[in-house]
C-alpha cells in the first residue's frame, strides 16, 4: 500500500461529518469502487429492499446497507455478516416496533457462529464485549449507521434514548465454540455453520462467581441478578446469558444443557409480591406495565422469565475467570438464527 495523502483523507472525513452521517467517530468515505467490492460479496440485487421502517416510511436497500457498512470501517468480506445481522434484527418485533426510537436506547446483540469467525478475525474469546477487533467493532457499527442514515433515526431527534445503554452499536462477537461444552448456538437453533443470532438488548450485567463449584449456587447467583426489580416494567422481563467457558463447563459437567439452564432459571428467577411492592411494581396486567396496587398476596413469587425457550444462551469470553453476563432483552427474542451467505466465488465454484 502506498502512503495515502493525509490531507485529502482528512478533508473527506470532515466532509462526511458535515453531512451529518457520522455516529461521532470518523467514517470511511465511500467511493463507487469500494462499494462495488462490497456488492461483489453478495449475490443479492443491490436494489433489493431489506428493511422498511413504517414509522417514517423509509427503506434500506442492499446498496445503502453496503455504503453504511463500508463507512463503518467494515472490510468487504464482513458484508454478508452485516446483511445476516440486519435480517435477524428485522425479524425482531422490537426492532420494527419503535425500538430504534425508544427511550431505552437499546443495542443489538450480535452473536456469530461458524468457521467465518476465524476467516474474519472475529473475536470470541478475551474481551468480547470490549474493543480491539475490527470485525467486532465495525459490524455492529454498520447496523447503527444504517439506522441513522437509511432510516433517519438520529439522537435527540427521532431517537429519544434517555441514557441509552453502554455498548450501543458495539456488541458483536463470535461464540467461543472451541471452549463451549455444547453445540454451537445457531446449530442448536437449526442453522448449522456460519450464522448470526441477534436481538435487541436493554443492558448487560456481569455475574462474577468463581469461588464455588456448586452449579446450583452459580445458577442461584444468575437468578438473583435476573430477578432484580429495576429491570421490570412489564409483567415479565426476558433475558439471555453470555456464559464464560468456565461457567458453561461447570453447568455442563453437572448435566445441564442450555434448556436445563433456562428451565432452572425461569423457575427460580423473580421476586415476591412484597419485594416488588417495595419498588412500586407489585402488579401487572397481561399486557400492561407494572404499577403499585398493594392488594396481592405478599408471599406470592412472581417469575421474571415467562418462557424458558425465550432464553438465548451463548458461550463467549476467555478461560481467565468465571465471569458471565446476563443480557437483558429490550423486549423479546424471535428465537432463530440467520445463515450467513457463503462467499460468492465459493458458491459459484461449489
Amino acid at each position, binding site marked *: 500500500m502506498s502512503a495515502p495523502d493525509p490531507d485529502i483523507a482528512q478533508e473527506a472525513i470532515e466532509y462526511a461529518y458535515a453531512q451529518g452521517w457520522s455516529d461521532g467517530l470518523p467514517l470511511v468515505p*465511500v467511493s463507487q469502487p469500494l462499494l462495488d467490492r462490497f456488492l461483489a460479496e453478495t449475490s443479492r440485487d443491490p436494489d433489493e429492499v431489506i428493511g422498511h421502517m413504517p414509522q417514517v*416510511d423509509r427503506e434500506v436497500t442492499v446498496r445503502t446497507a453496503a*455504503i453504511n457498512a463500508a463507512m463503518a470501517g467494515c472490510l468487504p468480506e464482513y458484508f454478508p455478516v452485516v446483511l445476516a445481522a440486519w435480517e435477524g434484527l428485522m425479524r425482531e418485533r422490537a426492532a420494527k416496533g*419503535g425500538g*430504534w426510537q425508544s427511550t431505552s436506547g437499546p443495542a443489538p446483540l450480535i452473536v456469530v457462529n461458524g468457521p467465518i469467525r476465524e476467516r474474519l478475525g472475529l473475536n470470541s474469546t478475551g474481551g468480547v464485549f470490549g474493543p480491539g477487533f475490527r470485525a467486532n467493532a465495525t459490524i455492529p457499527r454498520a447496523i447503527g449507521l444504517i439506522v441513522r*442514515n437509511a432510516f433517519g433515526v438520529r439522537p435527540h*431527534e427521532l431517537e*429519544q434514548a434517555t441514557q441509552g445503554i453502554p455498548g450501543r452499536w458495539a456488541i458483536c462477537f463470535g461464540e467461543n465454540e472451541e471452549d463451549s461444552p455444547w453445540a454451537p448456538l445457531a446449530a442448536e437453533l437449526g442453522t448449522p455453520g456460519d450464522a448470526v443470532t441477534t436481538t435487541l438488548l436493554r443492558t448487560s450485567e456481569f455475574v462474577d462467581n468463581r469461588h464455588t463449584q456448586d452449579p446450583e449456587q452459580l445458577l442461584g447467583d444468575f437468578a438473583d441478578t435476573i430477578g432484580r426489580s429495576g429491570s421490570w416494567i412489564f409483567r415479565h422481563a426476558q433475558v439471555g446469558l453470555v456464559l464464560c467457558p468456565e461457567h458453561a463447563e461447570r453447568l455442563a459437567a453437572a448435566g445441564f444443557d442450555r434448556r436445563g439452564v433456562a428451565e432452572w432459571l425461569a423457575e427460580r428467577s423473580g421476586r415476591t409480591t412484597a419485594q416488588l411492592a417495595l419498588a412500586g411494581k407489585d402488579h401487572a396486567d397481561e399486557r400492561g406495565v407494572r404499577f403499585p396496587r398493594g392488594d396481592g398476596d405478599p408471599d406470592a413469587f412472581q417469575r421474571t422469565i415467562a418462557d424458558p425457550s425465550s432464553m438465548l444462551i451463548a458461550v463467549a469470553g476467555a478461560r481467565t475467570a468465571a465471569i458471565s453476563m446476563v443480557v437483558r432483552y429490550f423486549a423479546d427474542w424471535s428465537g432463530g438464527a440467520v445463515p450467513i451467505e457463503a462467499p460468492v466465488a465459493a458458491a459459484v465454484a461449489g
Partner: protein
Amino acid sequence: MVNPILDPTGAAPAKSAGGRAPRRPLRGARVGLLDNTKHNAMLFLQEVGRLLVDEEGAREVSIVETKQNFSVPVDDEIVSRYRAAADLVVTGVGDCGSCSAAAVADGIAFEKAGLPAAVVLTDAFTTTGRMMAGVQGDPDYEWITTEHPMAALTADEVRDRARRLLPEIVRTLTEQAA
C-alpha cells in the same frame, strides 16, 4: 477524475403537506378517542371524552380504539374507521420516543382525511414530535403539550390534567388555525 463520496441515506420520499380539516362546532359532534397504549393514556382520553360530552355539548364518544402498535402511525384503514364513526379525534398520550412521534403523524393523517384532531404529547418529546411533523411534510403542525411525566400520575391527577387541558383541546378542535 475524482470519485464522488457516496451518500448513505438512500432517497427519502418527499411527503406533501395535507393541510387542516375544516372546523365545526362541538355541539352535536361525535368524538373519537384513539389510545396509544401508554400508561394513563386511556384514562386521560376517556375523561376528555366525558368532559366534551357533558360540558361542551358533544353528542357522544362514538369510537374508542387502542393502537395495536403504539410506535407506528395510523394506516388508511384506521383513519377510514374514524372518519366513518366520528367528527373529530382526540389522541395520545405521547410520552415515549416512538409513540410521541407516531401520535404527531396520526394527527396529521386525521387532518388530511378531514377530521379535526387534538394530539397530546408531554413536553419531553417536543423535538421528536417536530422531527416527525417534518418527515410527514407538515413541519408547522401544532399539537398540545403537557408536563412530563404522565405515566406516574394517580388517577385523580390524570383527571385533573384532562380538565386543565380541556380548553386547549376544545380550541384545537374548533378553531381554524391562523
